[in-house]
């Protein structure tokens, strides 16, 4: 379980992220939605320990994520654009991630096999298309069976079939994992999410459980309101 204790972060006078106390519980698929500049990336980076909040902190299993490595062992992250050293081969990229994770057995190769990564192990990373790079990142993110998975716009850049495989994987893995992802695709929210957090101008506007009642009754209303925010 990730616990966010009232975090604040500002960049000059233009932007201020202000999140009240928030709990992100296992097992769950949580979607972080919001228009450009709403604070999704900053919030995600605070959760990943890449950005230090001005006040407040994030706890995992009762410990501050910046003081304790437990969270990093339990975390897998897929960036919006997969960037690894250009001159490394795919097999070396997988080797380095395994070495750093210190995870020696029981890898989950399902997505790796579905994406046929075996066939491109000897290819240089720079020679691959952006979609293939994303497939490598998606395969790596599920390989370590991490209890916490954070995905930044995971289906962006993937072809429809690869995106479907990834969505199936998310649905399969959600039974025992906390999966948090950002997206701009509304259908991804309704297909995958158990909970929707909508950010606007650095604040949480909606935090809704996506149960049947919500999906049947309220979701259309909220989705149309969300669409209005996107329209500005």
């Amino acid at each position: 379980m990730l616990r966010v204790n009232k975090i604040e972060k500002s960049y000059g006078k233009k932007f201020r992220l202000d999140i009240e106390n928030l709990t992100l519980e296992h097992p769950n698929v949580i979607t972080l939605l919001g228009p450009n500049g709403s604070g999704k990336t900053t919030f995600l980076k605070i959760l990943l320990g890449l950005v230090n909040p001005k006040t407040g902190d994030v706890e995992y299993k009762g410990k501050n994520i910046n003081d304790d490595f437990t969270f990093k062992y339990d975390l897998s992250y897929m960036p919006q654009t997969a960037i690894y050293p250009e001159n490394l081969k795919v097999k070396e990229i997988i080797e380095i991630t395994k070495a750093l994770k210190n995870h020696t057995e029981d890898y989950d190769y399902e997505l790796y096999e579905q994406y046929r990564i075996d066939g491109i192990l000897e290819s240089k990373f720079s020679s691959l298309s952006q979609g293939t790079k994303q497939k490598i990142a998606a395969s790596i993110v599920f390989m370590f069976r991490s209890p916490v998975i954070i995905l930044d716009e995971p289906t962006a850049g993937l072809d429809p079939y690869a995106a479907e495989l990834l969505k199936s994987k998310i649905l399969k893995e959600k039974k025992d994992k906390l999966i948090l992802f950002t997206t701009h695709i509304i259908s991804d929210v309704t297909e995958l999410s158990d909970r929707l957090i909508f950010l606007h101008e650095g604040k949480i506007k909606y935090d809704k459980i996506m149960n049947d009642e919500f999906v049947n009754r309220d979701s259309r209303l909220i989705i149309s309101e969300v669409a209005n925010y996107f329209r500005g």
Partner: protein
Amino acid sequence: MRKIMKYIIRDIVRSKFIFFYTGTLFLLTMGISYLNRDDTKTIITTLNLIIYLIPLVNILYVSLHYYNSKEFIETLLTYPVKRKQIFRAEYFSLTLALTVSFIMGVIVPLLLFGNVMLILNLLISGILLTALFTSISLLFSIMYDERIKGIGMLIGIWLFMSIIFDGIILIMYFLMNDFPLDKISVILIALNPVDLTRLYILINLDIASLFGYSGANFIKFFGHAYGLAVSLLISIIWIVVPTLIAARKFNKKDF
């Protein structure tokens, strides 16, 4: 740290740039050695190559490498690796790769022609300059997220240390020649590591005519042996201080 270094070095070694840089240095040094049959003249001409070209190539290569690796560094930071280990891996990999390029491109061709003792001093100076400009480049790249700003600042620093600094000192001496500037000139030379490197080589070659006013005062103040030790010590301080500041900024940086 070694795990990360291994892959960063593999990435650098496979890039075409590092071979192009080594090859260019090699050809230039071979040309200099061939045209100057005298050891001392060869070292002085190569010294100019070292104090102008190495800092410029270092700042461009290190800063571009850092900016291009930024997203990879972000990904590394989500793994159970301490920030200081990632910083050290970046710093030592870049310094090592550029030092090996310098040795293969400058020292090896000189060894084919010249005096080993004189070349040893050039080797020390080249390594010190490489380590120093790697630190400064990493520091400014970490400080400025916009690559145009970071690289622009670094080119400004290179221009200042390699060219403008000497001009300012000359103007200062010209305008204030009625005042006793001996001690001030010793302090001023310590402020510029490029001048210190030049002085370090010239002390070893014992060519007083090329010391310049500041260099001559430096030698007068410390003596030959002390001058050599002090110039080395200040150069090392010039490497350690920016590296420590860069490491500190990297540890606290928002990515």
